[in-house]
């Protein structure tokens, strides 16, 4: 990991020499085993850049905040699609962005890692040993098997090396995901329940939703200037109010079902929505359901079409006859 971190710092320094205005990467967090988005605006700020298995954030959406600056961004395999999506939908001017790819050996579940490491041990180095991460701490060396410590989304990952990048750092990472894992296994389990049981499953989760909108704010597919759920200035959109601000089960379900529908075919599967949810609603179960259905019904969408819902085939499956 040290190697990639150093490369990142060097690349950033070089890009600033070439006129870069903003470098979006990661720095170490304020608590152990945590990283966070980092924004270097000048040459002197590049030394804080890191890359380690806690860099789970998808940084792509931050690009939208710098519409006029020459910006570089660090992407993992699962983030690259987000840049592509944002470019495709004209949120970004690709020509002013340098996309820097990093090979990803999978991201670790922080809670599990902390439980494994000695409480007061300070992490000094992390090395990726293909099927395990080796942690050097002030209390010694610890080997964390990936199978046991990776985030669930990494265990079904098939794209841990980013594509479409301008610059790829380091060597291509070996596959992380376990082969033969069905990404839709949980979706299928839920689908197999009878309707009342499905309703109960979702009601319990949706009842928890705070409508803090973290899932939306972090989502690279939720790129509307103003979300339809809170068009605040009256008169805009002729005053249609889609959703009550009241936090009730019907409204929460409405919000999540429609959000999932709005990102249908556009979700890049980065899983950020699920990560940021403070009340642990497994939101990817909604996105994955749609992804599965789209795959089953319509297959891949041609690259020149904005999304699966912006096209059709006369022979599409008809479940309404």
């Amino acid at each position: 990991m040290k190697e990639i971190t150093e490369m990142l710092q060097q690349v950033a320094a070089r890009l600033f020499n070439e006129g870069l205005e903003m470098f979006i990467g990661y720095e170490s967090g304020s608590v152990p085993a945590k990283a966070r988005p980092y924004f270097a605006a000048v040459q002197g700020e590049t030394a804080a850049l890191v890359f380690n298995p806690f860099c789970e954030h998808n940084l792509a959406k931050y690009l939208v905040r710098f519409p006029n600056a020459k910006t570089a961004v660090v992407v993992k395999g699962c983030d690259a699609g987000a840049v592509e999506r944002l470019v495709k939908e004209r949120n970004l001017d690709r020509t002013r962005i340098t996309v820097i790819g990093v090979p990803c050996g999978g991201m670790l579940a922080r809670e599990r890692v902390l439980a494994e490491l000695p409480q007061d041990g300070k992490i000094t180095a992390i090395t990726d040993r293909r099927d395990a991460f080796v942690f050097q701490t002030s209390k010694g060396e610890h080997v964390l098997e990936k199978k046991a410590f990776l985030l669930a989304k990494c265990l079904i990952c098939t794209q841990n090396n980013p594509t479409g990048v301008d610059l790829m750092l380091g060597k291509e990472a070996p596959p992380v995901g376990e082969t033969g894992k069905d990404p839709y296994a949980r979706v299928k389990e839920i689908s197999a329940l009878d309707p009342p049981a499905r309703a109960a499953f979702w009601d319990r989760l949706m009842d928890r939703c705070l409508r803090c909108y973290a899932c939306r704010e972090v989502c690279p597919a939720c790129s509307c200037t103003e979300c339809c759920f809170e068009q605040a200035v009256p008169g805009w959109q002729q005053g249609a109010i889609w959703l009550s601000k009241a936090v009730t089960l019907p409204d929460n379900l409405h919000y999540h079902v429609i959000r999932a529908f709005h990102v249908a075919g556009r979700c890049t599967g980065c899983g950020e929505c699920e990560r940021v949810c403070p009340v642990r609603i497994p939101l990817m179960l909604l996105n994955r359901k749609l992804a599965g259905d789209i795959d089953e019904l319509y297959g891949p969408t041609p690259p020149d079409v904005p999304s699966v819902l912006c096209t059709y085939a006369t022979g599409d499956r008809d479940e309404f006859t």
Partner: protein
Amino acid sequence: MSVNESDVVTTAEGAAWEPKIVAFLCNWCSYAGADLAGVSRIKYPANVRIIRVPCSSRVNPQFVFRAFERGADGVLVAGCHPGDCHYVTGNYYTRRRLTLFKRLLEYVGFEPERFIVRWVSASEGQRFAETVKEMVDGLKHLGPQKRVSRV
């Protein structure tokens, strides 16, 4: 399908509960089909309330959810048969959107009978009437939709 005595849900006042269906019908085919049912004096249950839209592709899934939130027991969307859209391609988009949406609704726990999409042409008054009958029967079996009703 018939409703057994024991299945009849009653309201607090003791009257037999009747499901409420909101129907979005496209102006050119399905609304005309419902008109034809009228012209042909084809009887069907009085549970359906129709909203006219120019094309089934105007039906935002959020309208469907809205209806459930406001206490509808079932929602029907009807449009021209694929290929016959007055606006050439509108119902092809409807088909994609609402196929995914219906599957999603069912996935989050709605019974399939709650949300129905049908193709009803201007000449299919009978089919419209039958669709309503079927829906009413289905909904009577399910009982009132209380889950997302804010009423």
